[in-house]
């Protein structure tokens, strides 16, 4: 039975590699057209009306959620997956507290951008400002990125020297600390009551907003997908740079990398900080669209879901992790009857993928080969 599974697996892998090879062999202009067509399709998705494909829409079922809203969530999760992929997939650091950075990003726009936040109220009192004053949305973007990046460095500085598995637990603890602090510091974050009226690109949410309103979610999706595409491009450039190669070297063998002159700690900290910044950015978008956040939205199970997206999709490969993210965000929405069982399904999927296919569904080729090499070196006795 196992042999049969392995044989099917080998055939599937050959077919996948065939597709990838053929794609890589195309002349550049054809690839460019392909990418452009795909991007155009992504922008067209919320209007999806192609006959035969409309069943994909989540509002095609009873009580389904707004299709553009689900797409927006998918886009946010893809952004999270891309950021976490830098940490887990490229640098090989297991970060179980990614939700912490997501929360920091979300809370930075909430605390500084919403007129309901205690921080803004305090600023109004201290500096004699009008009661409608709050930090502008556009200024909150760099603020969110800076704050999450800084927190990534602050967390990474002491902990990245630890062994990999200790790091996992410490980051898990970090994610919990952020949530508990947000819940307990009532004077700063409103505690469990949460913060409402978080602004979007057009300011605080109201019925008068022309583009980024409460009803029509398509502009939100287009905004998110634009950010995702920009970040995919940026991370792709990073991957193929000196920094990216150092990450891979550290992931494969830290000692060998150190011998070759790669400063492990420095590059790990870079990976951690960049990952944190991307997490903060996605949290920022999430909070702007939601217009309301409270600490219970940032619990540890969501953090583990993020890791599941990356791992099931195929850590190290951006196409893979994006696929994993869409899968895990979309399936429970379209197939409502499974949404109750989604955690058990995710857990099961994580185990099955790790045991049968540790490189993920759409793996990075380098990573797959690495794992094959390790399997060959396995000791016979155990």
């Amino acid at each position, binding site marked *: 039975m196992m042999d049969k599974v392995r044989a099917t697996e080998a055939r599937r892998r050959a077919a996948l590699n065939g597709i990838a090879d053929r794609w890589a062999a195309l002349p550049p202009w054809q690839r460019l057209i392909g990418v452009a067509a795909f991007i155009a399709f992504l922008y067209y998705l919320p209007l999806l009306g192609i006959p035969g494909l409309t069943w994909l829409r989540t509002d095609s079922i009873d009580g389904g959620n707004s299709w553009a809203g689900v797409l927006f969530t998918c886009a946010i999760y893809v952004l999270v997956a891309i950021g976490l992929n830098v940490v887990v997939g490229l640098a090989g650091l297991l970060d179980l507290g990614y939700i912490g950075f997501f929360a920091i990003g979300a809370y930075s726009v909430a605390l500084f951008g919403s007129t309901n936040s205690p921080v803004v109220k305090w600023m109004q009192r201290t500096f004699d400002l009008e009661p409608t004053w709050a930090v502008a949305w556009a200024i909150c973007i760099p603020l969110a990125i800076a704050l999450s990046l800084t927190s990534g460095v602050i967390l990474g500085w002491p902990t990245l020297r630890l062994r*990999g598995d200790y790091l996992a637990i410490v980051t898990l603890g970090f994610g919990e600390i952020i949530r508990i*602090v947000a819940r*307990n510091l009532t004077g700063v974050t409103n505690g469990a009551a949460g913060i409402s009226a978080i602004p979007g690109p057009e300011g605080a949410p109201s019925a008068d907003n022309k583009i980024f309103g409460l009803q029509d979610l398509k502009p939100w999706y287009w905004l998110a997908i634009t950010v995702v595409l920009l970040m995919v491009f940026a991370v792709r450039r990073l991957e193929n740079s000196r920094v990216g190669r150092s990450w891979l070297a550290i992931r494969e063998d830290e000692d060998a990398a150190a011998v070759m002159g790669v400063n492990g700690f420095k590059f790990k900290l870079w990976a951690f900080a960049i990952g944190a910044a991307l997490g903060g950015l996605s949290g920022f978008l999430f909070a702007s669209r939601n217009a309301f956040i409270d600490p219970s939205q940032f619990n540890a199970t969501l953090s583990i879901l993020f890791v599941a997206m990356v791992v099931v999709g195929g850590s190290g490969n951006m196409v893979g992790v994006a696929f994993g993210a869409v899968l895990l965000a979309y399936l429970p929405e379209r197939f409502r009857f499974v949404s109750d069982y989604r955690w058990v399904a995710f*857990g099961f999927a994580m185990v099955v993928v*790790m045991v049968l296919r540790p490189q993920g569904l759409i793996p990075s080729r380098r990573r797959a080969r690495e794992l094959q090499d390790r*399997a060959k070196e396995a000791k016979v006795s155990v």
Partner: protein
Amino acid sequence: MNFDELFGHFGQHTVDGLSKGAIYALIALGYTLVYGVLRLINFAHSEVFVVGTFAVLGAWTAFGLQDNPGAGQAILFLLIGLVAAAVASGGTALALERIAYKPLRKRNAPPLVFLITAIGLSLVLVEILGLLLPRLVGGVFPTLFGRERQIVGMPTLIEQKALITIGDTAITNVQAIVFVSALLMMAALDWFINRTRYGRGVRAVAQNPETAALMGVNQDRVIMLIFVLGGVMAGAAALLWSVRFGFTQSSLGFVLGLKAFTAAVLGGIGNLRGALLGGLFLGLVEVYAATLYTSAWEDVVAFVVLIVVLMFRPTGLLGESLGRARA
């Protein structure tokens, strides 16, 4: 900062902290044993504990435990609970090893793969206990599983009474039972690892798996043994938890497991006596912190302590190593 309360009732808080820490220490043993031999964080160990609490509840319900039984009956039910929890937890731990970890080990998978598998297993176990079982059999055994993800109460086995009072400090009978039984279980485990033939095998594999194999130690059996031992200790912790707190919930394991792991790291992971020390230390720190600030902050303090200890003493208070526990 409520220093008056802390120092005014210092003895009482110390007693509370020690009895809390004893349960952490018992769970921490499971992490430490597995880590000491395999260098693997068995993330699903917290769920092994939760399975144990449900087993205790199941056994007590099956044998018809009423609130506050007499002393003889209470001892009988303690034994029944211990056997049920030990079998359920030990069995679960063994199943995890056979189903998930062994195939990975054969393939020499990197540590991250093990950890992610363990997280997946942990999710599956939580959902089975919290969602699937209540849906399937919740109607038949409502007292056992209740509604989905709900807190399930247990009958009170022993009524809390002050046993000894020294000044302001009252030690209740339940606290004394929890503390003393935890110490006994740990002493037994320590004896087993350090004094018996099987224990020697465990230490040998922890020290050097290849050499141990050459000397005729069956590695596979040792690995199964440590999973079962860790599971049994988690079962004992589950029983003590049930006696002390009288409730269980499918999501109970997450925070408790994190704390127990913290305790294991604090004392030096892979070191049995370190787990005891770390557990008691963490229990004390938490109770003191909860008194100084509020109980809402105790988890934060526990994690901050973990980070600080790892920064300044990454090998824990007593240093790690199961192999060198007693050469």
